[in-house]
């Protein structure tokens, strides 16, 4: 008889099991009524809040707005960092300037810039996008620049030998060679932008129309709608998982793993 591979050895299975265990513990604590439901709502009421806000279209609209903001922030941030890195690759002086800028700005959390943002851009959409661009641009620059700098001479020479020049050399040799770095930069940028977005929306720039998931949480908080707050948190977690474990993992598999540039976990 052939021995089946133990289900317990499966990573995904184990992870799903942990989630279920966590939810079960949550529900037991909630139903035991040790804490008032205002502090610790049970899963059914959270799910109900999620269904209600989805059905009314509010959750979808808020989520959509948050994603729109983050795409704007990421897009502008990526564009700026690529231009800056390109200039830095050409000019040594500019490279020093860029490294100084990164050193100054990288440690500044976007949320700390909020008071200044409020003065410069007001409390609307562009204020939040500014904070997002700030959280994207520095890690992205740092990583992209390091990536391009790490491209080995041999690879460049081989490229030149087979007749690649200028932009072709960049897209065919340099970008793939630097991709693990660019990829890491992208992951860090996303993580920082996503966290800044929710924080920024909750602290300022929160308004009826220009409001995403952070504003939804803020609003629910003032109506003491704890299940509603947890429902929005659930959506934030879900999007985080989809992007970080879904999108990025797939991207990683198709690029750097396929190219044999990183060690994969069995």
């Amino acid at each position, binding site marked *: 008889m052939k021995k089946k591979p133990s289900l317990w050895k499966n990573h995904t299975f184990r*992870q799903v099991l*942990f989630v279920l265990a966590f939810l079960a513990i949550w529900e037991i604590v909630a139903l035991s009524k040790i804490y008032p439901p205002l*502090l610790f709502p049970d899963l059914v009421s959270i799910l109900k809040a999620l269904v209600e806000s989805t059905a009314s279209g509010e959750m979808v609209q808020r989520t959509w707005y948050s994603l729109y903001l983050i795409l704007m922030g990421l897009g502008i941030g990526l564009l700026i960092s690529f231009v800056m890195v390109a200039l830095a690759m050409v000019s040594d002086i500019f490279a020093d300037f860029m490294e100084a800028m990164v050193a100054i700005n990288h440690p500044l959390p976007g949320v700390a810039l909020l008071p200044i943002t409020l003065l410069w851009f007001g*409390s609307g959409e562009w204020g939040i996008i500014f904070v997002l661009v700030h959280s994207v641009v520095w890690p992205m620059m740092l990583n992209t620049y390091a990536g391009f700098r790490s491209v080995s001479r041999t690879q460049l020479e081989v490229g030149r030998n087979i007749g690649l020049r200028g932009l072709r050399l960049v897209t065919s040799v340099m970008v793939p060679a630097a991709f693990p770095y660019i990829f890491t930069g992208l992951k860090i940028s996303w993580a920082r932008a996503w966290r800044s977005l929710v924080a920024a929306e909750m602290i300022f720039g929160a308004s009826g*129309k220009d409001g995403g998931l952070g504003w939804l949480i803020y609003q629910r*908080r*003032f*109506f003491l709608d704890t299940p509603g707050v947890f429902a929005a948190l659930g959506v934030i977690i879900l999007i985080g998982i989809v992007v970080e*474990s879904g999108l990025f*993992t797939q991207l990683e598999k198709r690029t750097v793993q396929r190219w044999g540039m990183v060690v994969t976990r069995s």
Partner: protein
Amino acid sequence: MKLYRLLASLVLAAILLTACAPAAAPAASDAAPAPAADAPKLRIAEQFGLGYAMLTVAREQKMFEKYLPGLQVEWQTYGSGGAINEAFVAGQVDAAIMGIPPFLIGWDKGIPWKVASGVCVMPLGLQTYKDDIQSLKDFKEGDKIAYPAPGSIQHILLSMAAEKELGSPTALDDFGVAMAHPDAAAALISQKDISAHFTSPPYNFQELSAPGIRQIVDGTQAFGSDFSFLVAVASKDLYEKNPQVYAAFVLGLSDAAAFINEQPEAAAKILAPSFKLDEATTLKYLTWPGMNYTTTPYGLMGFSDFMVNAGYIKNAPKSVSDIAWYNVVSTVGEMQGETPSALEKLQYRP
């Protein structure tokens, strides 16, 4: 993999949550009845603004301690009624001064508290500097109306005005932006970022004293009659388990209200430093037409009726005694027969 680590931290968070929460949970309070006998304690939550003047006066003049010598008063300042709601749920305060709407939101969600006293009747309003905005109909794409928080009295009064003028209480919700009073007042006076600001004293007085700023909605007109801008609320525990502390709180507030009304100059002297204003301006604000420090509540039921109809809360109090402790219920009174008394009518919108 990422997810794996994420889960590990989730489980850890759950363990921490279960371990830490009891400290914050008022309901798990079998062991809680504090030894109140030796050191009576009162934890009061307040906010910023002229409405909290009674607390400042009572603190400086030791008016609570007068009725209960040895009383230890602990003061906590919060940025909004919503934050006070959370502090009550977490069991961090015994009494607070706040707007009726955030109090009702908490009451609706089951916070064990009721109104212990009226605090003040004051003029609230919506101000703008924009020439093309003459009424609520004139707000258009890109305009922003600032108020302290969703569910605040300023937000609810705006909804009342929107229902009267535009037919729907939520007609202006898309224009709303949550900003603290001082920030929004500064933005309005410098005529940038926001189009209008629904606010309360002293911020509306400051705005109206600045050039080019007009009031387009009067809070009293939106409500339909005078209403209590602020009320004092007290927890069930305070009312039932510490009646002496509760009594000192209520009587101290009464003394403070009378003090401000009878001796505004002396009150202005006490209040000026805490408002960072000079005495003359403080006196001008304290005696502004429409200001009234009174422990009689106005409009308790008017707010709850509106908030139930507009869908902000689900449970409707059937009578004043559902949402007020007995000293307030007896102040309002109950006229036998067909016609309710003036004070009873005062609790409803006309």
